[in-house]
């Protein structure tokens, strides 16, 4: 029996509980994600998709309900570094070279210097930035910075990758390029991915399952399985792709997006 990558059971999150500015961000969320899935959370602003991701990451506590990650509590999974995370802002450290940015989590885990260097080199090749290890982040374009952030999140080969609108700030062309890169990495590394986005085509293109959420309070409205097989440059013109996009759009219209 394989353990579920993520199991959220009856999870609710209320911000500012008991105060006048109390906000119910999430209500009774049940979600199971199996290992190897690529699940996208999509929905209008205020639907709590980023909050759900932060709960899974144990960056904030649940108000009620429970979340397990790899069969442990979310808190324990964070302490064990079971997941890597990437944010909308690449969040690279300007004072570190690109290679040293990728090595940061490895340093915190106490890896030896030689092992760190070998791994950062491997990760740089993975995101096709092999020649940029000694550059500083300020010298890189936005798309390159985001690829470094992905390399950093994957550097210790976590079984789970959590991504909060990581491509939101990129232009369309760069965005499609890094999407393909992410898919290639996902296929090569057996990682489970939970991905938050605003973009319907992005959600459909990337995921095996799209979770549509509704706002006030944040709830899961529908889940749509996407079965497009291996993606390539023709996928975006595929009738199946357009059908899935339409299906997600309809679901979003129902929730008032």
């Amino acid at each position, binding site marked *: 029996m394989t353990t579920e990558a993520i199991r959220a059971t009856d999870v609710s999150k209320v911000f500012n509980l008991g105060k006048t500015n109390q906000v119910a961000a999430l209500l009774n969320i049940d979600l199971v994600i199996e290992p190897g899935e690529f699940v996208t959370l999509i929905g209008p602003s205020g639907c709590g998709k980023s909050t759900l991701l932060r709960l899974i*990451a144990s*960056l904030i506590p649940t108000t009620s309900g429970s979340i397990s990650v790899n069969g442990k509590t979310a808190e324990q999974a*964070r*302490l064990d*570094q079971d*997941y*890597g*995370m990437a*944010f*909308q*802002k690449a*969040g690279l*450290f*300007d*004072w*570190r070279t690109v290679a040293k940015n990728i090595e*940061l*989590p490895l340093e*915190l*885990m106490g890896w030896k210097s030689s092992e760190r260097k070998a791994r950062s080199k491997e990760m740089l090749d993975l995101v096709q930035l092999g020649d940029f290890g000694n550059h*500083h982040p*300020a010298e890189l374009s936005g798309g390159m910075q985001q690829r470094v952030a992905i390399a950093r999140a994957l550097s210790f080969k976590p079984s789970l990758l959590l991504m909060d609108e990581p491509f939101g700030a990129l232009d369309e062309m760069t965005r499609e390029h890094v999407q393909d890169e992410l898919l290639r990495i996902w296929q090569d590394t057996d990682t489970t991915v939970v991905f938050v986005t605003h973009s319907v085509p992005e959600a459909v293109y990337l995921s095996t399952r799209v979770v549509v959420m509704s706002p006030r309070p944040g709830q899961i409205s529908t889940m749509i399985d996407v079965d497009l097989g291996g993606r390539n440059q023709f996928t975006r013109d595929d009738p199946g792709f357009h059908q899935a996009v339409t299906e997600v759009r309809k679901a979003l219209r129902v929730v008032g997006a």
Partner: protein
Amino acid sequence: MRFRFAEASAPLVAGVGILLLWEGSLWILSPDGFVLPPPSDILGSVGENASELWTAARITGWVVVSGLVVGVAFAVAASLLVNRFRLAREAVTPLMVAVNAIPIIALAPIFNNWFGLTSPRSNQIIVVLLVFFPVFINTVKGLSLADSSQIELMETYAASQWRITREVRIPTAMPLFFTSLKVASSLAVIGAIVAEYFGGRQDALGPMITQAAGLTRYADAWAAVLVGTIVGTILYFLAVAAERAAMPWHDSVRRGSI
């Protein structure tokens, strides 16, 4: 950071030009050089009193450097504590603001009585206090500017608060810290010399200035001021060098601004 002749020669030409103008206008306006001595007299005085000036520069320089080092160390330690502990922040910050409002230099005569009229200790303490606030306030600000997504990222790695401070907050605070260090290095010289007017060793720069001015030997007074300026300039450029060594990655350093 390359040193180009054109860049170095522009301020040199400007400086020499100002000195020549100064010298020339005094020839016409005030031939006796009573109020403002010409640069040639001041340089002459530096030559005549070289050994006394050298001794004075070392004594005052020690007050400046020791006060600067201690003041900056206290300021950095205090800003780390205040950043780390909310209680410290709430307890200490209003107090700091109040203490900062004290005209510190006015304490010099009082401190002289406390620590002995001829001891340099009171002058060092004036420098420490004077240096403390700009460094403290800027470093606290700098530490608080750390990017929230970078801190969140460190939390996903289950990093300790101290590690987050070391990896994120301290590097973020560096530009503001070094700016304040440059301000503090000039303040330290001003503080030391003015404090010396009221006491401390009598062969330091401060007393040299008051004594020479009292005897209307203005060229000698200006010579001591010139030496103080040189001490301050050296310190300023040491601060710039430290900044460049500490944060070669920063935009301002890469563009070579001071």
